[in-house]
């Protein structure tokens, strides 16, 4: 794709077009095949690398689609349109580089209500990452009470104890695993999380 030549911050990892460097925020464009061999779907995705994930998180972005038809490799003219749409999406994605920017973006985005990354579990992890354990607890406890979180999050025990070191280890561990599973080591640049500073 000529896109890789024009934008040197883009890397192709499998079917994912990743914005590099990858730090706490992971931004990529997913180009996925459909049941029709010629057809595919494209969407932008944004998430935080220290979330617990085992596969590419396809949320936090929007679908790149036109009004009629599916993307099809047999229609060269439409691929030009797609490249243009991707290039138009990049600046918006590039602006989201920190945890705070990610939160602001997701909160202000039109479909913010439906973002999985900002459900209580995600919000609590963000509060932990920012070192605000009080806030994290105030998010987790009601969510557990209302059974919106119907499991015991791994961080819950450490959070109750206010064990910052254990929490930091946990976030680093989750981040490390994300980078490993998604094969992003080449593009990953570790970045301090708020909790390390305070």
């Amino acid at each position, binding site marked *: 794709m000529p896109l890789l030549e024009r934008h040197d911050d883009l890397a192709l990892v499998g079917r994912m077009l990743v914005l590099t460097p990858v730090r706490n925020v992971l931004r990529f464009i997913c180009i996925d095949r459909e049941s029709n061999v010629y057809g595919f779907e494209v969407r932008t995705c944004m998430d935080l690398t220290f979330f617990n994930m085992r596969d590419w998180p396809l949320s936090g972005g*929007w*679908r790149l689609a036109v*009004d*009629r038809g*599916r993307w099809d490799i047999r*229609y060269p*003219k*439409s691929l030009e349109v797609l490249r243009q749409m991707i290039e138009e999406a990049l600046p918006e994605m590039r602006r989201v580089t920190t945890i705070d920017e990610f939160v602001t973006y997701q909160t202000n985005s039109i*479909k913010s209500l439906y973002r999985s990354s900002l459900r209580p579990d995600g919000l609590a992890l963000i509060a932990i990452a920012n070192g605000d354990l009080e806030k994290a607890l105030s998010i987790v406890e009601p969510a557990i009470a209302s059974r919106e979180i119907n499991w015991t999050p791994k961080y819950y025990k450490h959070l109750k104890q206010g064990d910052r070191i254990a929490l930091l280890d946990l976030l680093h561990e989750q981040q490390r695993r994300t980078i490993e599973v998604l094969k992003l080591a080449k593009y990953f640049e570790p970045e301090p999380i708020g909790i390390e500073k305070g």
Partner: protein
Amino acid sequence: MASLLPVTTQEDVERLVEPILDRHKDLMLIGRHLVIKPVRHVLRFIRLGNTLFDDLFNVTSVIDLTFLRYCNWATNGGRSLYNNGWGPWNIFDPEEVERLRRTIEETLPELRRVNTIDDFVAYRSNEPPPHNTFSFDFKLMAYIAIAKGDLDEAIGVVEAAIAKGWVEHLPKYYELLKKHDRTALVTFLRKQQAGSIETLGLTDYWQQEPFPLELRE
């Protein structure tokens, strides 16, 4: 899964439509699409064969608008021409082929009658369930309102869709719409239309016509 019938090839489709093309000079075949000329704001065609499983030969008549953005042929709002009221066609059975040709030719007059955006709205508005999804397609509704110059109505359609959580990302024309920038909206629709016509390979059959948006100041 083994298919019950041989997969239909482009040659099979060409053989099927040959006598129809002879009898109706306003038709042409583009791939598996029997298109009625001229193509203006309204695109009318009959899709021969399903996209995914080409061994099931489904036939659909479609009327759509060329100023939407296309990346491929689509059968949104299409009406199926069923074999005996249901199911796909076997185009290797001479009797069925004759019946299919007749069915296609009987459908042509109703497609030919739809020439303007208003005709299109009227055609799509009176569909029986479960095909009465026309007014739920907020993108289509917004485009029609813009093309007709009803900008406030278009804003209302988009804002209602945003409020309902149907919009993932703001449409490109939204800023222009908010500013009531008619000239820029015309340019936008024209550009989108030209791109779609080119994508679908219809350049030689397309006749440009003004948008009602341009005529109403």
